[in-house]
């Protein structure tokens, strides 16, 4: 009791104003990303709402007809959707087998030295801007296809855009699949070798199935990238909505349509303007769902091995 006049050492956290300000600013920076997402949903959603709120745009017209010319009251979304699906499908047909094979080679076969020489090829491919791929599609792939298939191939066609898009997505699928393959525990491989399996049998029957979920995630991200890719299809796939399933023909995709229309003179509040936002909003939702699925798969996969 007699020591009461000594102040005990204060171990309580001191209030530091400067630090609180800094911490708040840092939190705001972190929270800004949420704000961006909300802004995308709000701005795109608002214009899309205006578009769908237009009495001319009926559900039956939107999904029931196959002509898209909002300026003259034709609101059938299918030509844009089918061409997006066709080009994406072609791209995946190219990039999935090639990307997977490249990943298998890099993760299971290549020596560290071979890896360090081969991997930059994919990295360079991944770093090339898409507008350059567009040039490549229009001025290399299309003439090549015309040489192979003859006159049936139009100057702008979905096949050429899809193939080149496949080359563009290949590095992404390869690198994600490789991550999935190298995450497979060594024990599984050793076990297979001990049973007398060859390297090929080990890779394809043991490692590949074990990495399947990760490869699935890569596939989904690849699809999402293909659906959202703009420049290749804007340059090479054609300008003008066209309801066709023939990959030799020109047809505009959702992204290509947005790029072409918004590149021209566009007056706010016109039906053309809001329709672009409706398409962009659909694109956003589709890619968001695909990305979320892919992330969920990867998270589940991680839990299994770590």
């Amino acid at each position, binding site marked *: 009791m007699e020591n009461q006049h000594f102040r005990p050492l204060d171990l309580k956290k001191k209030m530091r104003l400067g*630090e609180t300000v800094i911490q708040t600013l840092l939190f705001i920076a972190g929270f800004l990303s949420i704000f961006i997402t909300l802004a995308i949903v709000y701005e795109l959603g608002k214009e899309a709402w205006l578009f769908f709120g237009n009495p001319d745009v009926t559900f039956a017209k939107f999904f029931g007809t196959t002509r898209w010319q909002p300026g003259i009251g034709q609101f059938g979304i299918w030509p844009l959707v089918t061409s997006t699906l066709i080009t994406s499908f072609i791209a995946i047909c190219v990039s999935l087998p090639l990307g997977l094979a490249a990943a298998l080679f890099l993760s299971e076969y290549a020596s560290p030295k071979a890896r360090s020489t081969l991997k930059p090829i994919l990295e360079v491919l991944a770093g090339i801007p898409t507008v350059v791929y567009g040039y490549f599609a229009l001025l290399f792939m299309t003439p090549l296809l015309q040489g192979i298939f003859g006159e049936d191939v139009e100057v702008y066609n979905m096949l050429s855009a899809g193939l080149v898009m496949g080359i563009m997505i290949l590095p992404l699928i390869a690198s994600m699949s490789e991550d999935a393959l190298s995450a497979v525990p060594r024990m599984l491989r050793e076990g297979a070798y001990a049973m007398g399996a060859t390297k090929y049998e080990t890779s394809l029957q043991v490692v590949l199935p074990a990495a399947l979920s990760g490869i699935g995630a890569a596939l989904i991200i690849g699809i999402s990238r293909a659906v959202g890719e703009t420049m290749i299809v804007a340059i090479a796939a054609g300008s003008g909505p066209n309801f066709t399933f023939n990959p030799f023909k020109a047809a505009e995709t959702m992204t290509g349509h947005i790029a072409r229309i918004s590149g021209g003179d566009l007056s706010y509040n016109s039906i053309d303007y809001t329709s672009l936002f409706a398409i962009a909003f659909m694109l956003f939702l589709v890619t968001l769902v695909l990305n979320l699925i892919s992330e969920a798969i990867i998270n589940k996969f991680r839990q299994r091995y770590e």
Partner: protein
Amino acid sequence: MNSNHDHYPEGDSFRRSLSGRYRTASIWQALFFSALVIALLSLVALLYNVADGAFGYVAYEYKHDPAEFTAKPLDDLNQEELLALLKANLSSGAYDKLNNEQPMEKRSKSVLYTLVLERLIQIETLQIWSMTDSIFRSAGVKAEVAENYPEAKLEFRSWLTPVFLTTPMSSKAEFAGVRTAILGTLWMVGIAILTALPIGTGAAIYLQEYASKNFLNRIIQTNINNLAGVPSIVYGMLGLAIFVRALEPFTSGSMFGVTDSNGRTILSAGLTMGILVLPLIIINAQEAIKAVPDSLRQAAFGVGATRWQTTWHHVLPNALPGILTGSILAVSRAIGETAPLIIVGASTFISLDPEGPFSKFTALPIQIYQWTTRAQSEFHAIAASAIIVLLILLLTLNATAVLLRNRVQRKY
């Protein structure tokens, strides 16, 4: 011998089946490898295709003979003589218009030379050939020219020249350059990185150093990963709605007294691009901060530093090279992105250098897009040249990033 005999071969049949299995194995190995060969071939084809377009024979004609204007050969004229030539032969209206764009006296010799060719002599390109044709079918090309265009001159031209880099846009492919586009790209990327780097680094510090593992922070992290996967065209639409339209008084500069502009300015494009690269910068900065050893933090806390002191004096300096590498990668992403710029910018023909953030703009990838989609092959040639400029720019940036990364890796 048991009943498994059929399933597990022994002796000779075992060896035969083994060699079969080995054969299958090596075939598949070759198949896997061929995927990389195809990737390499695509890359080579792409680069060759670009070079193929940027160099080659050109057949052209002079509409007017240079002798009509001057006795000396054109190449020997100096700057003043070229200037006098233009003054004497251009209508005064046309000359004043050029003078208003940029004082004629201040233009360099090569710019004036180009003007003489464009306005007085009026070169007309008749046909161009690819590099492959020009090299391997040289005789055939010459014969074609002699037959089809007896008056024409034929020369092997590199469309990519120093003049190409320093001349502004032109509606004629022969005289178009990428000066305006390069300046536009630099402005746009500068604004993008100035906004995204501080915000992105701040967000990364918050997530790595401050954030506790609660629901909100998990949402922020997931959200950033998802933003990185949003198609760039969606960011373009966001930029159109927010920066071009809603914030028009700010982005057009009318708030600051700039009158002759709408919202489709460099500022809008730069901010849009900043938002686009923000997730990329955050994720890279997070990796860099994560790589700083925890012992550094513990030591700082141990001597009584606060969290911010620890972050500012110990974590950030060590993470800085990694953060810079990440921002260089973000810059190279921003330089190559085209779709958002088309939507935000939408300018088709800009021949004046951007003067500030409130100028209208064009950028390298926009020019490549516009020239590629033109029907005439001379525009494809300048598109190819612009692609080479773009690729060299990206290569330099990425090489810097790799060097920086290697230096960091050596440190720990």
